[in-house]
């Protein structure tokens, strides 16, 4: 059988089978193609995949305690944390030794900082221990360490340390979803309503983002329709008006809204002037959710108008004319013929505005007051202020998950292929 196949296979001039020769030529082509996209792939990997992977890692990484206190965490393995008794002398001896060496490398405070995210007081406990351990030279280390700070004599302290001595933790995700691990029992509990932050903020961020998508659509749709129907010259001028704020600094646009909307601001003054409201009834339109919605709708409007406009321009006017000439009511002609054709633009604009809105933080921070801040404001706080990058990353990962979830929903309902970005 093989022999027959060999006989009938085609060969090139130099005697190699055509199949192999073709594969070789194609491989070269593929290599060239790959080399051409390689810079792009490399860029995507560096600028996109690596940071996201890094963020994922940060949100579960818990290696600080184990790396800086290896012997102590090893010795703690033999201690049963719910026995109601303190760990043995071995653990205390290891702790004293390792705080000494960590102090020399200036790392003991790092452990304290890490554990302080779990329970208040560890920061100063380790800072103080770093100052005092050098005086502890001889056993028994247990008594000596407890004498330096009575917190070392509490079982709770060791429970926290033991439960944070593995390489990975789910603690940041628990915190990001308003749960808390009780170290006394190892059980996970949800925070009482009065202490919950993140779930409320996630919910609010999504709701306000939807409101913004809706408003940009309501404002953007007729505007884009007008842009697509007027003469090219007029539409070019109008497009510049759409793009002009786009090129203005975000901060400038946001602060202009403050000047307009504040209680002593232009709009309130005008409303009083025309007698619509009284001096005591000045409207609170900023430093609350209203401010965030107004300012962000304005800022994100171009992202709705541009895809809508590009789609509307391609819809032949004859469609609607044909529908009307066949007896459809103008409203029906619009709703049954024109509107469905704009769906790719609506889809693209909505997804764009939604994804941008859900991650916004500068505008909500400036105009949102208390009721108009977003979950991203908490991410910013944890990255740049509290330095709890683990928690910040965990919230970020959840936010990314939410965006992907909406994306999948969108794909199921509308279809991602139906989207047109201009």
């Amino acid at each position, binding site marked *: 059988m093989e022999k027959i196949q060999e006989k009938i296979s085609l060969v090139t001039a130099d005697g190699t089978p055509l199949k192999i020769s073709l594969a070789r030529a194609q491989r070269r082509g593929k290599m060239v193609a790959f080399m051409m996209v390689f810079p792009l792939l490399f860029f995507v990997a560096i600028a996109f995949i690596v940071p996201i992977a890094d963020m994922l890692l940060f949100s579960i990484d818990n290696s600080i305690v184990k790396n800086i206190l290896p012997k102590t965490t090893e010795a703690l393995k033999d201690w049963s944390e719910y026995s109601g008794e303190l760990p043995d002398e071995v653990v205390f001896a290891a702790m004293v030794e390792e705080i000494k060496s960590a102090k020399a490398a200036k790392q003991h405070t790092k452990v304290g900082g890490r554990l302080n995210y779990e329970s*208040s007081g560890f920061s100063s406990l380790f800072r103080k221990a770093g100052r005092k351990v050098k005086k502890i030279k001889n056993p028994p280390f247990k008594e000596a360490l407890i004498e330096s700070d009575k917190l070392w004599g509490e079982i709770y302290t060791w429970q926290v340390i033991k439960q944070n001595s593995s390489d990975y933790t789910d603690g940041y995700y628990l915190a990001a979803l308003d749960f808390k691990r009780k170290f006394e029992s190892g059980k996970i509990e949800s925070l009482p309503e009065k202490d919950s932050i993140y779930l409320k903020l996630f919910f609010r961020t999504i709701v306000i983002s939807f409101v913004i998508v809706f408003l940009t659509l309501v404002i953007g749709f007729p505007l884009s329709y007008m842009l697509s129907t007027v003469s090219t010259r007029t539409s070019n001028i109008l497009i510049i008006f759409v793009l002009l704020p786009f090129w203005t600094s975000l901060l400038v646009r946001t602060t202009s809204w403050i000047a307009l909307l504040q209680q002593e601001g232009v709009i309130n003054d005008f409303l009083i002037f025309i007698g619509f409201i009284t001096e005591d009834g000045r409207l609170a339109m900023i430093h609350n959710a209203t401010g965030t919605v107004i300012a962000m709708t304005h800022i994100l409007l171009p992202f709705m108008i541009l895809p809508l406009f590009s789609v509307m321009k391609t819809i032949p006017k004859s469609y609607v004319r044909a529908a009307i000439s066949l007896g459809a009511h103008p409203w029906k002609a619009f709703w049954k013929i024109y509107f469905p054709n704009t769906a790719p633009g609506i889809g693209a604009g909505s997804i764009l505005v939604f994804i941008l809105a859900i991650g916004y933080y500068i505008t909500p921070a400036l105009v949102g007051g208390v009721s108009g801040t977003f979950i991203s404001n908490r991410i910013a706080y944890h990255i740049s202020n509290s*330095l709890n990058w683990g928690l910040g990353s965990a919230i970020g990962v959840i936010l990314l998950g939410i965006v992907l979830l909406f994306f999948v929903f969108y794909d199921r309902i509308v279809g991602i292929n139906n989207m047109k970005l201009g």
Partner: protein
Amino acid sequence: MKNFMRNMMATAVMATLGFVGQAIAKDLVVVSWGGAYTASQQNAYHAPYMKNNPGIKIINDDSAGTAVAKLRAMNEAGNVTWDLVDVVAADAMRLCDEGLAEVINHDKDLAAAPDGTSASKDFGGLIVSECFIPQIVYSTTFGYRTDKVSRPMSSICDIFDTKSFPGKRSLQKSPLGNMEWALICDGVAPDKIFDVLGTSKGADRALAKLTTIKSDVVWWTAGAQTPQLLADGEVVVGSTYNGRLFKMIAVDKQPVAMLWDWQIFDLDGWIVPKGTKNKAEVMKYLRFATDTQRLADQSKWISYGPARASSAPFVGKHATLGIDMAPHMPTDPNNSKTTLLTNYEFWADNKDDLDAKFNAWLLK
């Protein structure tokens, strides 16, 4: 043609010299807060230092607001591009804790006072971390609109008195300061504040007091917001850094007055980031920039108190306005009858916890 050639030669030589000159000159990247504050440092420290040391060029970077996170990121990337960073004391402590700042030997690295007092004695208790070189004492305090209140405000508890002083107040969107003031006005003895605040009940008590004015508060996140809100008449009274209020009152001549009662002192100063490539030059610069005269010079440009005790007698008049600076200093005896010093140790332990409580309270 000959002339042309000669010109070309001269240009080439000059360009080469210029290039060599640049190669010799060392750039020091100094990170600070920007605006009037960086200007005061430029006038008091950078300009005279560069004049005396032509080989050094100081480049200002205004990203102190995000310095802690950026330093940590630089450290993780293994490429620290900053040489000196201006941070508040609490951040200096944290950077020191994380091993991101160099430990300073204050007596060895810094100049002694003119009378020979060692640097560590001259700075005294203000050296709150072994990595921290104090520079100024500033305070978070209140300014109020003189034209919008029926009588001058004199007590911190006037903030909580919405009957006598109706209108909005601006407070920082942070538990720091607000919780201390709330407890003082709820009757807690000032020396017991942190004992009370450290308990769950005490924190609830502070928040309960803040609840009484919650609907009247505009929360700020940047120091520039309160002056703007005051100027626009959006708030009658608001907290911010005292230097910002000084500018409003003395430079912009706004109808605003200070309410110094229970101002909260805080410190700002330098840290040397670990991994700086110009450590020797930076230490030399630091010795100059933190000496008695230089710290006093800075107060000619901005109303923050110099951190050295020995600088106080040298505080003079404002460099351009010509007004006496001493009465505008938070440390002036008339202004500092009742003060609170930020409790760094307490906040290092409890900030995360109280901040979570505070934010949950805001969302209620």
